[in-house]
């Protein structure tokens, strides 16, 4: 078991590809995406229902090495500033599997 960082981003699905590109450029090549998130943000104050018109929100999870964090923040922050969305970081322990060792 060893320490990695968990990055959680909630944003509109229209911005998804830009954010994933940002992660990729920052060297974080793995991620998982949950779609069809509904939500409410302080900014717009109204509950956003999923509807046909404005796209759904997505919840992006990426686990990365602690030293990848700085480039990630550098790549993601401008996108959040421009398009909105929130990003949070926390500490988790990875259970290394044989396969994971190969991939990290």
């Amino acid at each position, binding site marked *: 078991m060893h320490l990695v960082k968990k990055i959680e981003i909630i944003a509109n699905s*229209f911005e998804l590809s830009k954010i994933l590109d940002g992660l990729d450029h920052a060297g974080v090549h793995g991620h998982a995406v949950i779609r069809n998130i509904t939500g409410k943000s302080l900014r717009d104050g*109204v509950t956003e*229902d999923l509807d046909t*018109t*404005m796209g*759904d929100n997505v919840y992006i999870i990426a686990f990365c090495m602690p030293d990848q964090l700085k480039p990630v923040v550098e790549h993601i922050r401008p996108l959040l500033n421009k398009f909105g969305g929130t990003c949070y970081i926390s500490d988790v322990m990875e259970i290394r599997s044989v396969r994971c060792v190969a991939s990290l």
Partner: protein
Amino acid sequence: MDASLILSNILNPPILFFFLGMTAVLVKSDLEIPAPIPKLLSLYLLFAIGFKGGVELIKSGITQEVIFTLLAAMLMACFVPIYTFFILKLKLDHYDAAAIAATYGSISAVTFITASAFLNELGIDFDGYMVAALALMESPAIIVGLILVNLFTVDGKRDFSWPDVLQEAFLNSSVFLLVGSLFIGVLTGEHGWEVLEPFTQGLFYGVLTFFLLDMGLVAARRIKDLQKTGLFLILFAILIPIVNAGIGILIARFIMMPQGDALLFAVLCASASYIAVPAAMRLTVPEANPSLYVSTALAVTFPFNIIVGIPLYLYGINLLWR
């Protein structure tokens, strides 16, 4: 008389289910059509309308009328966002003005489909190539809107790439599926139509009805946003469609479209996009406030058009064509 047309429009299942959807939100029923079912219904409608349009286009061929109609469509798709931009600029900042202008320059396929169902009801013919006009009018406003933003705002770092924008404008899923189905309709012609008919024709009216139930839910949920948009935008969202329809009708008269086609053209001019354009604007003009351009198009213009607008425009056409 106008009122009887409105009534015969309102007493159709699609419009009544639209009301039912709105009512559900107003009385706080938990009725909902969960994602991605509305998406399925809208894919189906685009597929069916595009395919039918293609089949009929190949029957009629590319005549002079077709070319005139498509030219008129292009003209309106470029003209509307420009003139509305200057009206909107009076009260709003340049970003919001451009985004809303683009929204009204583009079209709503569901409004078009509702109008064509209404024509079927009344037994009035219309030409299949109107679907080509529909497809043509979807994208230009996005481009015009962006050019306006570029001309009227001066921020150094507006760094969007034209390829991305053109991609978004011409290859977004609505335009792509509509145009693709149209092409396939042209290629397979009458024969393809026969085999697909129970699917594309038989279910069409029912799916439209079901979809409008969802549109009622969606539109009603947006109504509370209107408090923030203010009276100016609400008036805009009712008057501009009427003006655009009026211009459209005059052009239609000028190039001597038949009445059915004229109504569809008027509806295209009058309607505002609440899917393709908002999606594009959100990415290219993130400074604009989505709740302004989505809510006006969805909670005011869309209901106005399908309930009052369609019969009203037909009434006008009936007067002029007499």
